[in-house]
């Protein structure tokens, strides 16, 4: 499981890869929120390389989305594979955090 955070001129991009299971989330959660929250700016999360997401992974994303929303910034996810989309659909997470196909869509969504 890896996390790469970059700044795309005013938009934070967090690139996750691997399995977002309990063990990996325990290891990564602090790094993720420390990388995303203090900037308080629109954030896009790249899930292209994420193969699985457990309930703690959903919590990590939801906590960040709620925190950013309180500071007036949006979080949008993109690139999720069908298995991950299925997990989001089951929990209706996409009603709370938008999930779009591509990075360009995500940038458009957080900027809008």
């Amino acid at each position, binding site marked *: 499981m890896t996390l790469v955070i970059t700044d795309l001129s005013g938009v934070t991009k967090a690139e996750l890869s691997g*399995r977002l*299971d*309990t*063990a*990996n989330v*325990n*290891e990564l959660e602090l790094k993720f929120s420390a990388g995303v929250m203090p900037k308080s700016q629109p954030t896009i999360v790249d899930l292209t390389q994420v*193969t*699985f997401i*457990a*309930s*703690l992974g*959903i*919590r990590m994303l*939801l*906590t960040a989305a*709620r925190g950013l929303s309180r500071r007036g910034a949006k979080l949008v996810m993109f690139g999720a594979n069908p*298995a991950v989309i*299925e997990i989001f*659909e*089951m*929990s*209706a*997470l996409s*009603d*709370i955090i938008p999930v779009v196909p591509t990075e360009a869509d995500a940038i458009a969504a957080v900027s809008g």
Partner: protein
Amino acid sequence: MAESEQTQFVTRADAVNHIKGDRLHCLELLNGGEVESRHIVGPLGLKVGRTAPADVVLADTEVSRSHCLIALKGEDLYVSDLNSTNGTFIDGTRVSSVVPLPVGSILQVGNRAFKHEWRTRAEIAHLNESDHELEKAASYVRALLPPKIAEGPIKVDWIYKPSAKLGGDAFGIGQLGENLYVAYLVDVAGHGTGAAMHAVAIMNQLRQRSLPNTEMARPELVLSTLNELFQMEDHAGLYFTIWYGVYDARTRRLEFASGGHHPAYLVPADRSEAIPLHTRNPIIGAMPAMMFRQGGITVPQGASIYLFSDGVFEIIDTDERQWDITDLIELIVDPSASGKDEPQRLYDTVCQRAEPSTMDDDFSLMIVTFE
């Protein structure tokens, strides 16, 4: 000169020995990034194997009966493999003779891994105390679970296997009126006593049927009220998923709603199929003022509903394949199964198939059968 005579000179080596004197070598069995159990290696060493009389018994098919030996020599630990079938590894390197096990290294035995920690007695006491707190919290949750019912119009059977670090699962069944029955399962996202106590708080609301201004026989309203009462910001960032159903024995109608939860399944007596019972609703506590929907189905005579948490199917099997809910459904409708002691059968089968370290969440499953 008098002063120097009184001063006790301590060399660096003495200081290290002094600290060592209070420290113990521990092998910590890992499970999903958490410590499942802690084993102190004393002067007699420790033998790891699949069956007794090994000191540490690992129920894993890839572990040999007598797998490896960890010995204390001087101040250090040494590992030797006892001609195991699948080998013993230290940080990925196979052990071929007697080799040292450095502090901080990972000892791999079959599908399980130990971390070598060197801890003070005070640290160990503190860690054991928190394990004890988890056990107490688990027994508190267990005390709230419903009685199993083997006879009568509604039969109830279940299994609850909390994970080493205790997840936030809980479930229940109750009666709302002469012919109205309610069944529910909640799964708080998180581990530890916090998640378990949150589950207890939700359970108590449901058990006492005490939600404000809410008709408990209307699943959509129950979820909507829970969502307002348990917003994650007000509850230490915790949210939960739920499946909630109400059965009317006069009409054989089951009304249900799931909040962020996967489906429960309706399985006819002949177990020919498993019908998902799911309504697409958000996770409870994720966002206020959300709309909730409910669904309904007529329950055939002798049919059962299977309610379970995601810990039941979110595993990786021994072929390294990630399971999803359809893998569990195959097990549920397996025609070769007798249907007796069904929760235990499913638990045993998942245990056999899963790579043990991936069963890192609570395993909760309840079956309610409607005669």
